């Protein structure tokens, strides 16, 4: 069964690219540009992994992350924060909210694959 990744990213070109990269590895993707919608999709779609941007319209990625981690349904889904906020504090914040990994933009596509695969246990 193919793995499914939820991409919460408001910049279409980036989210599309991420989906295509994962496609190359045979990983399915669900994309949403909105934090609130992301939370909803996380419960509905039951993804195996979530790639979460921090700067999102509506709800911040960090809030989305803490919501996911406090929800028993979603709390076991690995969350990888993907952000241009390549700052120590952001990484710490993200990890404190329960994120499982961190990727700073712009990222190397192969790094993305590596991180995702690692968290999916592939």
């Amino acid at each position: 069964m193919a793995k499914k990744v939820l991409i919460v990213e408001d910049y279409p070109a980036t989210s599309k690219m991420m989906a295509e990269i994962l496609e190359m590895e045979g990983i399915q993707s669900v994309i949403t540009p909105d934090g609130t919608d992301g939370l909803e999709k996380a419960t509905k779609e039951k993804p195996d992994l979530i790639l979460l941007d921090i700067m999102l319209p509506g709800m911040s990625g960090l809030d989305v992350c803490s919501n996911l981690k406090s929800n028993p349904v979603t709390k076991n889904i690995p969350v990888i924060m993907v952000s241009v906020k390549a700052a120590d504090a952001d990484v710490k914040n993200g990890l404190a909210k329960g994120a499982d990994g961190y990727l700073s933009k712009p990222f190397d596509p192969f790094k993305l694959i590596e991180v995702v695969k690692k968290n999916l246990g592939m």
Partner: protein
Amino acid sequence: MQNEEERIKLYILIKWFVLAGLFLFVSFEILTGLIIGRTMIPAFILLALATAMNTSIYLISLNKRHFPLLVRISVFVDFIFLAFAFYVNGGVENTWWFLPVFWVFISGYLFSIWSALFYALLASLGLTLDFTLEYFRIIPHITIHKFPLNSLDNPGYLVDYALGMFLLYFIGAIISGYFTYLLKKTAGELAHSLKESESARRESETARSALLNIMEDLDRAKADLEVKVRERTAELEEAKSGLEIKVKDRTADLEESRKALMHMMGTLKEDMAKLQVVDKLKTEFLSMVSHELRTPLTPIKGYLAIILSGKIGELTEQQRKTLDVVYKQSDHLHSLIDNILDVARMELGKPIPLVKEPILVNTVIEETMEAMAIQAEEKKINLHAELQPDLPNIMADKTKLKRILTNLIGNAMKFTAANGEIVIKSFLKGSSIQVDVIDNGIGLAPDTIEKIFEKFYQVDSSMTRQVGGIGMGLPICRELVQLHGGKLWAESEGLGKGAKLSFTLPVV
């Protein structure tokens, strides 16, 4: 007491009066027939002659030195005349032989006791001579009385008479002299005391005038002082009013200056507030721009990487080379954006986060050089390294260290002409690892060695267009090195002599 001249004048006058009185009395005797008148005439003539001689001598002697002596001699001569007049006028028969006592008195009074005694002696001698000569009939006796006293033949009478007269003259002389002496003494004492009182008076007068002088001096000094005080007071008053005016003027000036300054300060404060707002906006803008630029950069770099990986189709050699350039340029764009973000952080006073991990400096250098090799090749620059092997691991942020190296090497390439050379050296120095980036490019003027670390500093405006850059690289590098606890500096022997940029990273 009168002076001698006046005394002699008086003496002569008295003689004339006595003579006149005698003449009147004798004339009365002759008229009444008491005495024979004819013999009287030559006697009077003689006496008048003697007195006249006295007078003339006196008049001649006036104002002459030997005046008293001449007069005394004249008095002596005078007596001879008198004695002769007595002889002519009866001799022993004459009853006026007492008359010389007046002369004795007068001379005693006028001159001195010695003069009186001398006169008395002369009178006595004259009388004795006359009596003696007449008695012994040596000279003839001249009878003057109608009834002559037969005294000539009576020696006892003559001696008595002579002795009486003798005593009369001398006692007269002594009395006269003594009185004169007493008078003189009293007068002397009086004069002396007068003199003394006069000198005392004079002294007191002197003292008084001295006191007056002193008082006058004091008065004058006081007046002078008063004038001076008035003058000085006036001067001070003037100076004071001058000062007051000056102070007023200066106060007004200062007030004006103060107002101007306050106004300026107000303006400056406003400007500063505006500037602060603008500065904050700028920083926020930089931060935002950096984020916004990075967002599209993510798919650009990502897709380029995918294409270059060949996973979505094989590329021709030409395509690969072209896309490689695009990728490198997007990489450069990425580092520029990162620089801007770091500047924004520095400006905001936010810490630039470091993700430290154990790294090998030489590995990072090699990776960076590899990334820049194509660029060096294009510019025909000989980029090579002299790395000390077996350098210890250090804790550092790999991304930041790469950025530092990229900046330094990129800078060196900017300012090094084609066929130039860039050497990267690494070595252990004390407890730090030092990295040198040495080029043989345009070098640095001594006054620009520190300026290159200032934000937005450009070596030369004409150079800027040629080499590009916004003047942020080196300031950020220095900041990043310092964040690692190291130092970054530049060395150059001058323009055209190349440059060496070095930094240290503590081992710990």
